[in-house]
């Protein structure tokens, strides 16, 4: 029961329910769970190109010859990659930082694998780097840092837009977001 509590959102009560369920009613399921976890732990590491979680040395995205190799999207977490993949139709490649610069927590460029990113920029394949870090102060600092790396090499750096969510109401949006939305307004032709 205590082991299950390492999962997010699982308190003592849910842990108890899950354990009893697995032991009383679904021993096969428990066995599959054990095996799946074990295989995942044994086999899933990081892709050597993009640092995303992957079963193979080179992940499926990086190995796919149809992806546009001149576009590189820099992103914070594997969950963010899934989000972008599922909803944007982005056809380039990724670089997963596994976090953001956070000096007070001791996370600097080295911890984010930015040297590997620099090597990749130096290869000369990339024409545009899309900075898709979160719109937090640390995400912003990270984006700035990486943009500098790109500019030093004459590579175009773009930042994802931030503003009012689709279907949102201005009234209920917080001030910071609204200010960003206004600062980032675009020409509009109806």
């Amino acid at each position: 029961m205590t082991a299950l509590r390492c999962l997010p959102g699982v308190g003592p009560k849910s842990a108890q329910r899950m354990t009893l369920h697995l032991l009383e009613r679904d021993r096969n399921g428990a066995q599959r769970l054990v095996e799946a976890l074990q295989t995942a732990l044994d086999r899933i590491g990081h892709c050597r190109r993009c640092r995303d979680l992957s079963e193979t040395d080179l992940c499926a995205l990086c190995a796919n010859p149809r992806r546009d190799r001149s576009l590189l999207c820099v992103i914070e977490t594997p969950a963010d990659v899934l989000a972008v993949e599922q909803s944007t139709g982005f056809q380039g490649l990724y670089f997963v930082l596994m976090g953001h610069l956070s000096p007070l927590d001791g996370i600097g460029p080295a911890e984010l694998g930015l040297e590997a990113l620099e090597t990749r920029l130096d290869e000369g394949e990339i024409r545009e780097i899309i900075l898709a870090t979160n719109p937090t102060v640390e995400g912003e600092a990270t984006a700035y840092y990486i943009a500098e790396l790109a500019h030093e090499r004459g590579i175009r750096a773009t930042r994802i837009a931030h503003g009012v969510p689709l279907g949102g109401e201005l009234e209920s949006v917080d001030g910071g977001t609204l200010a960003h939305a206004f600062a980032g307004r675009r020409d509009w032709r109806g």
Partner: protein
Amino acid sequence: MRALLQSAFILHRRPYRNTSVLLEVFSQERGRLGLVARGAAAPKSRLKGLLQPFAPLLLSWSGVGELAALIAAEEAGLPIALPPNRVLAGLYVNELLVRLLPRLDPLPGLFAAYEVLLAELVTVPGEEPPLRRFEKRLLEELGYGLTLDCEAISGMPIVAEEHYRYVLDRGPLAVHRTELGVPISGQGLLALRDGILVDPTVLSEVKRLTRAALAVQLHGRALKTRELYRSGRR
């Protein structure tokens, strides 16, 4: 201890448990304190966008001891949007405050200086002069203010054309008196005293001085934000 609608800034935030956030806060009336914001990292939390560093906030909290619980948060005026190239400077100052300010020691003067600093980081073309002025103020508020108007042994006023060596636990000494300390011109000392920092040579002298003085306070531990300033960019 209960506090209502206190002017405050967030210095640092880190995730805590599932959906909560631990905040390091610098408040006008209570100084630096730690707050836990329950549920602030939940997907639909309204506080998520609000509880960001550099935004002027009104915070209410309750609790005893080192860590109080955040009850409410609202914006206090316009959010300060630091331009991307100034965010690092802001993080640097936040790191200084987190590392150097004692908890629950009200420093309203320093709070005001912090507000001025953030405003200047948005508007002033160079980030160094505001940073040096703030560092000087921080040292004063911590009780380790720099002596900038007279020579430490003779008590004679600083002469702009003279050269000095600043020995940290004594003050500026005429250059022939010692081999120790940070070399600095009279002009540099006076510029820092008046907060008027324009000349690049003066700026780099003053930077060496405040950096040395802060290093003593930091007990020699390096600041992480400094690593992010890439060599050759400043």
